[in-house]
């Protein structure tokens, strides 16, 4: 018997547990020229806001050890243009399409979600709570429990689509924020978004990025992402979509073992356009080799081993 890689997350049936991460896959078109997108688990499109956004000044990317910083700044054409020009293409791909929703106020999030609620071909919304909240003085929704609750609640009221909350890793207690999001009505949690970082060019003696700070992603962040997936999947009962530094099937399996029900691949796609398919193949080969028949058998398996005695819980570790 062959392994079955299919999974169902909040009612969305996927051929495999591998999604394209938001912001690294555009609206799909560019990669549609490179490989057969119907083989993917799902596509999460780039962060979309109510109004068009111009994005941040260049440079917007900086390579760092085993990773990269980006400060794209949510450049997007706005929700109406998305629905009119991009969604029809995406709908035709035969793959669940998840729309990453961003905004500056809870009302803006709600309005974007409402418009998507009526647009056919959207499988779920991913609420991106890591962009700055200008109203609240630059504090991101994803780091303030009250603001997070407000955003998720208002999005919840404005749509019946499945809601995935994408958490920021720049927090002290990610499990707590995950509980806030699920209590406010989120059907799943995805993480991690990027870690806030920066790079300096010693020659110019200035920050490399035009926006000074940027978000760190890629293999460098994988250990932090795995730990947060482990914590969140212990803190909430909803499915967790894990990401951060996945470049291979083995990386993805680590996330599944840590408690993720599905994974997303971001930065790796920038290097290898079909990285998602590589990851799918790697997961399949791992399952085959180990005689694992369903993805579900892997989900959280490492935690079950530790709970049964092979390690200590968080409270007792020291550094």
């Amino acid at each position: 018997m062959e392994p079955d890689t299919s999974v169902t997350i909040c009612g969305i049936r996927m051929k495999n547990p591998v999604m394209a991460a938001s912001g690294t896959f555009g609206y799909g078109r560019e990669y549609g020229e490179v490989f057969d997108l119907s083989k993917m688990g799902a596509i999460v499109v780039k962060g979309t806001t109510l109004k068009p956004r111009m994005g941040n000044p260049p440079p917007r990317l900086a390579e760092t050890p085993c990773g990269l910083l980006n400060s794209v700044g949510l450049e997007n054409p706005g929700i109406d243009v998305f629905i009119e020009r991009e969604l029809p293409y995406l709908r035709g791909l035969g793959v669940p399409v998840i729309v990453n929703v961003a905004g500056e106020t809870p009302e803006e999030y709600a309005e974007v979600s409402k418009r998507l609620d009526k647009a056919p071909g959207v499988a779920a919304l991913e609420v991106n709570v890591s962009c700055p909240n200008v109203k609240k003085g630059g504090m991101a929704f994803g780091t303030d429990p009250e603001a997070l609750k407000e955003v998720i609640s208002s999005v919840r009221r404005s749509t019946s689509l499945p809601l995935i909350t994408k958490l920021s890793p720049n927090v002290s207690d990610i499990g707590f924020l995950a509980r806030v999001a699920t209590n406010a009505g989120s059907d799943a949690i995805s993480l991690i978004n990027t870690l806030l970082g920066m790079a300096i060019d010693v020659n110019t003696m200035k920050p490399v990025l035009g926006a000074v700070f940027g978000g760190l992603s890629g293999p460098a962040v994988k250990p932090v992402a795995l730990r947060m997936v482990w914590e969140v999947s212990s803190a909430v009962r909803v499915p967790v979509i894990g990401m951060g530094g996945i470049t291979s099937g083995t990386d993805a399996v680590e996330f599944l073992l840590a408690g993720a029900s599905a994974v997303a691949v971001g930065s790796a796609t920038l290097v290898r356009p079909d990285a998602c398919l590589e990851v799918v193949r790697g997961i399949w080969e791992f399952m085959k080799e180990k005689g694992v028949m369903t993805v579900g058998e892997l989900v959280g398996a490492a935690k079950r081993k530790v709970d049964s005695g092979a390690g200590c819980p968080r409270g007792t570790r020291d550094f």
Partner: protein
Amino acid sequence: MHAKTCRKGNINRVMRDEAAIGLGIVKAREEPAPGYVRLRLAFRAVAERARPGQFVHVYPVPLGLSAASRDAPVPQRRLDPFLRRPFSIHDADRSRGEFAILFKIIGKGTRELAEVRVGDALDVIGPLGNGFSAPVGYDRIILMGGGIGVAPLVLAAKDFAGSHRVVTLVGGRTAHDVLCVDDFEAAGAQVHVATEDGSLGFAGQVTDLFESLLSQGLRGVILACGPMPMMQKVADISQVAGLPAFFSLEDRFGCGLGACLGCAVRVVEPDGSRRYMRVCKEGPVVEAQKVDFDGT
């Protein structure tokens, strides 16, 4: 139509008539000047499609012949350096299925890339981007390159030679930084050299040389590549002279395919509005007057 994904061996794949993805085998490696490396790569699908001004997106670590011949569906790639690097297509021999890149060693990636040996395999996507094109009504092309900026101009000189007269202005800080003069001459182009220290040709910046040639009556379509300050001067001069000018721009690239929005240059639209343009997809060649130099 999708070409079939071939999971074994070194078989390259064409992406919907546009670009190919696969392995380029290093056929030749030379150092035209200290700190500069020219590689000739065998990759037919890239060479055949290459237009001047386009680029290839290369993972900068050589994989070695053994890696290329191994049974791996995708060659083992390292995690650091992480990203691919963009390089202009410097030359192309379509009949032999080979193309060349010429690069300057500046950092982590180019340092590693400089270590390739003949026979190594490099992971390449290309040709990408729009490439140079000349508006009708001009029979002369003026190529201007500052430093490593000459890299894309050699193929331009060759390809435009059939239809246009080609004049090339090559600038560098010193004589050591003046590259490819022989190549331009071999392509039948008239070559003018400028060095800042006066050690070769005209003493001054290539833009000074350009102004002096304009004052002698030079006219044509300008295709230029070089550092931003030089580009800005070229934009100003060509506007005053009323000549069309196109730039091949540089920026930090992620995907190179137009998906990540990581590469951005601010441009002015005809209606005066400003927006960020994806250099990799809508460029790298941009009309000079379109670039908003305040936004860079």
